[in-house]
């Protein structure tokens, strides 16, 4: 590290005390896309690869709020499931094309995030967790009751997108490989967007809020507004993951809104390492791999995930990726 400080003046390097530095940080978007490109070829199944893509992005969106802004939400299923439901309903009930339907899904989850965020942002710590959990449960029960629109307990069905016309090409979404790379485009755009946010002055502002709210406010940051904007961006990104899941599965299970989904994203983010760019994807990959492998042995695979999670929280609180980065950055 000391040799590079001679080469580039400190002023020109993006200030970064946690997370990746140098090469990994500069090339994080191309690197992630490269990894995503090879994923379906190295994982045991393509279905697993698509899940890593979707849940990885879900965790990345969650990490913007949890890892970078420091807010532990237990209600992000509302934005994931909300995005999925709204996209599905836009196609099934309103006959929208896949692309407008996805846009509506992301817009809808952003609005949902604005509402839930505005109601929860003034609470702190455990109260914030509980308010976000309660409000997302409200969304869950709304979807359960409004079965004419959402299919209730059976989930939303009847909106299969078999093919998508993109710029004169026709993508066959019934072919797993074509579907993977089709969905990967959205994940790549979302990752680029997250990287953009983290590099921006707003990215510095949310870090300041995470590090010390009192000080950030004294410096002149409107802490509530900063948190709310971060909450909305996070909700929108989770909404993108949700719409991808709707297109992928051609159904939206009610479970997408269940608090279990909220807890999965917390676990994935923490397993991989909150507050790092690649961490959430690593966490999603490891989580889904454990599920994939362990569910072959036993139907109680969640027991194994639970034990792994507890071991990580106790012994590697920075998560897999966070620990590797810390080891690499060690003095």
């Amino acid at each position, binding site marked *: 590290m000391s040799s590079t*400080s001679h080469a580039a003046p*400190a*002023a*020109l*390097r*993006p*200030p970064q*005390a*946690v997370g990746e530095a140098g090469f990994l940080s500069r090339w994080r978007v191309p690197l992630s896309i490269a990894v995503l490109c090879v994923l379906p070829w190295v994982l045991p199944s393509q279905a697993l690869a698509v899940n890593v893509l979707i849940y990885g992005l879900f965790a990345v969106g969650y990490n913007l709020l949890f890892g970078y802004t420091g807010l532990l939400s237990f209600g992000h299923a509302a934005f994931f499931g909300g995005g999925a439901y709204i996209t599905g309903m836009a196609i099934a009930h309103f006959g929208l094309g896949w692309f407008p339907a996805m846009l509506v899904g992301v817009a809808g989850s952003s609005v949902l995030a604005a509402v839930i965020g505005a109601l929860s942002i003034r609470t702190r710590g455990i109260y914030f967790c509980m308010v976000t959990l309660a409000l997302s449960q409200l969304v869950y029960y709304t979807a359960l009751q409004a079965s004419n629109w959402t299919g209730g307990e059976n989930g939303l069905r009847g909106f299969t997108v078999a093919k998508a016309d993109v710029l004169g090409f026709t993508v066959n979404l019934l072919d797993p490989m074509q579907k993977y790379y089709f969905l990967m485009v959205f994940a790549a755009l979302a990752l680029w967007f997250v990287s*953009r*946010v983290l*590099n*921006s*002055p*707003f*990215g*510095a*502002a949310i*870090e*300041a809020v995470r*590090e*010390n709210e*009192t*000080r*950030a*406010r*004294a*410096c*002149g*940051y*409107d*802490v509530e*507004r*900063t948190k709310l*904007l971060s909450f909305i961006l996070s909700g929108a990104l989770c909404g993108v993951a949700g719409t991808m899941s709707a297109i992928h599965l051609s159904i939206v299970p009610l479970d997408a809104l269940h608090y279990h989904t909220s807890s999965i994203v917390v676990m994935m983010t923490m397993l991989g390492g909150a507050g790092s760019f690649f961490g959430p994807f690593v966490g999603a990959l490891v989580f889904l791999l454990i599920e994939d492998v362990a569910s072959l042995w036993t139907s109680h695979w969640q027991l194994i995930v639970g034990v792994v999670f507890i071991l990580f929280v106790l012994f590697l609180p920075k998560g897999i990726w966070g620990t590797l980065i810390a080891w690499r950055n060690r003095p």
Partner: protein
Amino acid sequence: MTTQTTALMQVENVGRTFGGFVALAEVSASFERNKVTAVIGPNGAGKSTFFNVLSGVLPPSTGSIRFKGQELAGTKQHRFAHLGIARSYQITNLFPKLSVQENVRVAAQALRTRYNLVMNRSAYPELVEKADAALAHVGLHAKRERVASDLAHGEQRALEIAIALVADPELLLLDEPTAGMGPEETKEMVALLERLATERTILLVEHKMKMILGLSDRILVLHHGRLIADGTPQAVQTDPEVRRVYLGQNDGYA
């Protein structure tokens, strides 16, 4: 920029209650430009409440605070930095995991751009220059790449001041800038404050009497939430009421 007839800040009949407890009552004072004023008083006298009211952390229950003629009661705390009032905290209050330079740069950024998602944060080199200048002012320039939590206590206190200074505030509120410092560190801090005093209006809470007497133009004494004395260090030192409630009860301070 010379001393004007109107004060920089005018505090009138300011009071603050917590439930039934009166922490501050009927405090009136006005602060001239480029003067150092110290606020002293025994523990629980209302110094911190007074400071929190002046920096917007707590809204006053009664009374008015005018800064450059503008009423501050009801103004949100984060606006204070934008108006030209910056503060430091009694307990070190930094961005612990960020670099020393980023601590100050992000403070400077607050007054420039806050919700910008489009630009790169490195697109504002003037903020880095400002941060480096503030760090040079407090003698931390050489350590600007260190992580803030790795600094020694005295250095962290100096960083606090740099964070406040980078906003180029007209009024600097310092809550016990030498809290927890040894004699050597205190000496350096006093030298820094003396340099700052030539160009800024400073209001500070302090326990170390010797330091206050040498540094301040004026001393306010609070006791049970009331202002019991307001004058030059000499006048306050000889004030019988002050001697009774504050100086007399603990020789260590005198």
